[in-house]
């Protein structure tokens, strides 16, 4: 932590005041403290970024060669073999030659499943939670606050408590090992999404709706044509949060979606990790799979991330 003084003791002359205020506005004055602070920040960024690079470096390596040169900063004996194995394109001999897993795995299928699951969950959850948030923030009805409170208490409940009975429910509905079973519990709402959108809607001036009402708009029109378009920033933030969460969910799909046809990437990675070849783990293949699981959300973030970063935390505590 820097102990640099922002303003050195100077004679208290009033004509200096403006300059001193300006100096104080600068966050930290150039000096050792500031250099040290930047050094720490850069170190944090290196520690943040290095594992991503290491994933890539390993994924592009020949798994057998990794053992010979574990410290190499570049891919060892570069090959796309890891990716070929993960996408089920490599023959058993080819995989064995590089020290890879020979079990049958098809990340195309799991990637498709993950995209379907995360997209469906995000769409349903954001739409329905926003609608509910409108009813909680903007409509007058008896019992509104009590119902809202009930919704919000669910925020504090560890998911496993309801997911055990939910498993029985999904089983009884005959939806085990279907994408529907993986999607359903998160499709209609999460307490957080309702809470988040309500907070935002509460902050929109009422005059806007009243003006629309005078123009003869009903609640449906006000919500879909006036309020939603005004809410693009929180909607992007919430959608990205929902997508990240749905994409990374492991526990629930592990319970209800173990079979190939409903297996998402996180579950597939767990299975892949458990299929260790006799020679030793297929690290190259595993990191290729991990990269496939990480990339789609990273791309989404690069496209939509700006508003997300700016708005995280304004009520975005999750």
């Amino acid at each position, binding site marked *: 932590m820097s102990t640099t003084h922002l303003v050195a003791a100077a004679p208290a002359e009033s004509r200096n005041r403006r300059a001193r205020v300006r100096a104080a506005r600068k966050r930290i004055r150039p000096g050792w403290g500031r250099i040290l602070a930047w050094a720490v*920040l850069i170190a944090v960024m290196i520690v943040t970024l290095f594992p991503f690079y290491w994933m890539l470096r390993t994924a592009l390596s020949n798994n057998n060669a990794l053992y010979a040169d574990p410290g190499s900063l570049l891919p060892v004996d570069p090959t796309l073999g890891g990716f070929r194995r993960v996408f089920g394109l490599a023959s058993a001999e080819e995989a064995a030659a590089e020290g890879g897993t020979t079990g049958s795995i098809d990340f195309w299928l799991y990637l498709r499943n993950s995209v379907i699951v995360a997209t469906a969950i995000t769409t349903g959850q954001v739409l329905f939670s926003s609608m509910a948030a409108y009813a909680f923030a903007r409509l007058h009805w008896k019992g509104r606050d009590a119902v809202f409170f009930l919704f919000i208490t669910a925020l504090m409940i560890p998911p496993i408590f309801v997911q055990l009975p939910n498993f029985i*429910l999904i089983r009884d509905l005959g939806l085990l090992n279907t994408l529907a079973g993986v999607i359903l519990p998160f499709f209609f709402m999460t307490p957080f999404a309702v809470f988040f959108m309500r907070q935002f809607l509460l902050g929109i001036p009422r005059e806007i709706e009243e003006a629309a009402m005078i123009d003869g708009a009903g609640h449906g029109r006000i919500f879909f044509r006036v309020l939603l378009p005004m809410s693009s920033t929180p909607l992007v933030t919430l959608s990205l949060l929902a997508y990240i969460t749905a994409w990374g969910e492991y526990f629930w799909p592990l319970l209800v979606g173990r079979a190939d046809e409903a297996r998402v990437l996180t579950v597939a990675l767990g299975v892949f990790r458990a299929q260790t070849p006799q020679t030793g783990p297929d690290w190259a293949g595993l990191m290729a799979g991990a990269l496939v699981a990480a990339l789609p959300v990273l791309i989404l973030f690069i496209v939509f991330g700006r508003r997300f970063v700016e708005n995280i935390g304004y009520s975005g505590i999750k």
Partner: protein
Amino acid sequence: MASASRMTPRIRRRPRSDLRVALLFIAPAAMGFVAFYFLPAIRGLWFSFTDQNLIGSGDFIGTANYERMFDDPLFWNALWVTIQYVVINIGVQTVLALALAVLLHRLTRSIVIRGIVLLPYLVANVVVALVWFWMSDYSIGIINVVLEEVGLDRVAFFGDPAMAIPTVALINVWRFLGYTALLLFAGLQMIPPQYYEAAALDGASEWRMFWTITLPLLRPVLALVLVISVVGSFQIFDTVAVTTEGGPVNATRVIYYYIYQQAFERFDLGYASAIAVFLVVMLASIAYLQLKIMRSDRSDLA
């Protein structure tokens, strides 16, 4: 025109009830809430008093599951291991996140830097766990290669029972550090900059400003972030499930994983539910106590 738009809504606003419209708007979410939160919560509570298994239906057995729980050394071990995890995870994460948030706040407004710091949060727990599992591999993981290079001993990060929980805890610090820091950063932005300017004019050091301005004014935000991260931290599962699977010798058999094993490996849903009920009660009490102690509802800004 102007007077009309001021008059009409005032007449229409108060007396009406929007119940019918509200029901329409809330219907899908309410359906999901009842089906996947409310009824399961009641059912879960009921399961905890039965010998429900994964296949059939269960019979009422009173408080037998709870009695068994209090006599189960593996349950107490799971609780103890989880608490160790939470203390290390939250302790390290909070201090580092606070430091990072202050650094960002005092140094830069760069969106790119904040974006980079957030990257680990975007990646699934499972991916994060596997990457670090690989990097800390005993024989060819880069961390051990470097340790040996600089003349230190290799560390069995996941294989040594004493190291396993700290390792898992620190891996998840890596994932959540940037996110937590940005939540705190948002809180820092709410502190009026005049305070810092005035303090700077009086010659206060950065260190002193942190203790006398930043920390007291950030308290409500910090309290909320702490409550949320502690509750989340107790739910550690993914990292353990894809790396140690509870081992070595129960060293990482955290409570979430123990519940999972009881339900889906021993098929004992009744007992698993009883432990889950315990977890619910414990987390609710912790959250309540934390908010009470930190008086998060009262801001020093007022």
